[in-house]
């Protein structure tokens, strides 16, 4: 079972306590955007086989949304961080880069 540490309440939460929210750091496009921009925001997911950044909600705990870095090919968890982040923390990115030298960055 997947276990993630909630960065708000500090609990090591089992997957059964959490609700997945899929890809993190999406740039939102709405009225006035082009069809391509809106499609990319709405449907075109990175869906990487490897390092992935996701939204999770501590639904049966403190209720907060947070973000997690995880490997979709091995299920290894690299770390979690608050949802109020426009990019993964540098320390986390460095940690991932050390473990996955081929990783091309979160963008």
């Amino acid at each position: 079972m997947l276990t993630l540490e909630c960065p708000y309440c500090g609990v090591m939460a089992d997957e059964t306590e959490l609700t997945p929210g899929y890809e993190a750091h999406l740039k939102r496009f709405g009225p006035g955007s082009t069809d391509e921009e809106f499609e990319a925001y709405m449907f075109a997911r990175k869906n990487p086989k490897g390092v992935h950044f996701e939204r999770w909600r501590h639904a049966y705990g403190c209720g907060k949304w947070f973000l997690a870095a995880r490997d979709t090919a091995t299920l290894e968890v690299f770390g979690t961080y608050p949802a109020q982040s426009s990019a993964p923390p540098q320390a986390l990115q460095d940690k991932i880069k050390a473990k996955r030298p081929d990783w091309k960055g979160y963008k």
Partner: protein
Amino acid sequence: MKRYSAFALAREALTNHLGWERAWANPAPKASYDVIIVGAGGHGLATAYYLGKNHGITNVAILEKGWLGGGNTGRNTTIIRSNYLQDSSAAIYEKSRSLYETLSQDLNYNAMFSPRGVMMLAQTHHEVRGYLRTAHANSLQGVTTEFISPQKVKELCPILNIDGPRYPVLGALWQARGGTGRHDAVAWGYARACSAMGMDIIQNCEVKGVTSANGVVTGVETTKGRIGTRKLGIVVAGHSGQVADMAGFRLPVEAVALQALVSEPIKPCMDVVVMANTVHGYMSQSDKGEMVIGGGTDGFNNFTQRGSFHHIEETLRALIETFPIISRLKMLRQWGGIVDMTGDRSPIISKTPLGNCFINCGWGTGGFKAIPGSGWAMADLMARGEPGPLAEAFDMWRFKEGRFIDESVAAGVAH
């Protein structure tokens, strides 16, 4: 290829079964082909088969990174039905179901299609309205389904508990011509027929890159070297996004795990397929006597072909309430497959931004039932370069243009 028949069986019985041929050849790749299909699962093999049978294109290679039929074709719960709400879905799934009816004769290989009937239980008033609507839509589409009473449900499947306190059975959408098939035999039958037409099925050959010139595909880089091609079909289910990335475009798909399991074998106790979408579990009994069980997908992106245990627990909890007699059954095997889910939960059979490169993906949790129809439509698209009536609604640009085939809303669950 020697035909399988009662006569052949009798002949071999007299000669110690030493005369059977290998079902398909195991060739080394040639330098180039007219068509390369990536992925020797059911959909890829069916595509190749109908390219040969319907369009006379037989200079074809089917590349498989693992073993033939070892992906989702060998990992599903073998349910075959076509009771969809949207017209374009009903058309392709019904084509597929009707091809299954004669598949064994067509391939000269026993695919064990068993039209035992599929019932989808209505356990809330919302579901009753939904399935009534689907039954009406199906009658307009020429798909034979009917909405049946709880008494009829009990008659067709006596082991069902229709008086559950929380989710009593209020009726069901019944498709008498739906059923199950033998998943491996579908892959093997298509493979044997493709090989007999002179196509090359190349296993343990992983595609590592797609080469192109002037916006048109020219070949693939594989673990067995470069292979040239005039047309490329990507039919790889869970890894569609990865192969599309090699071809230089992005797909609206996400890969998640879907699990299934079987119980220890027991005596025959149900001869229909039952799907309970509100509590989210489905079950049928295999010829070996195992109860074949499936449920919903796991909730996060995953490429590991295994899922989380609590999803199995949730599925079984739902099914024990629905079928109380299975509560003491031991579960024998459990496995997972990686399914590619699109934004509207409908598949993609489409041209792509790369010339002469075509994609067939996004079958999500319901690909097995679609194998013959999907192959038929994909072969048509690849042979003519333009989609035919079965495929035209399923292009990959519908997400940009808002032409969804919204089966996720119609079904209420992944399916």
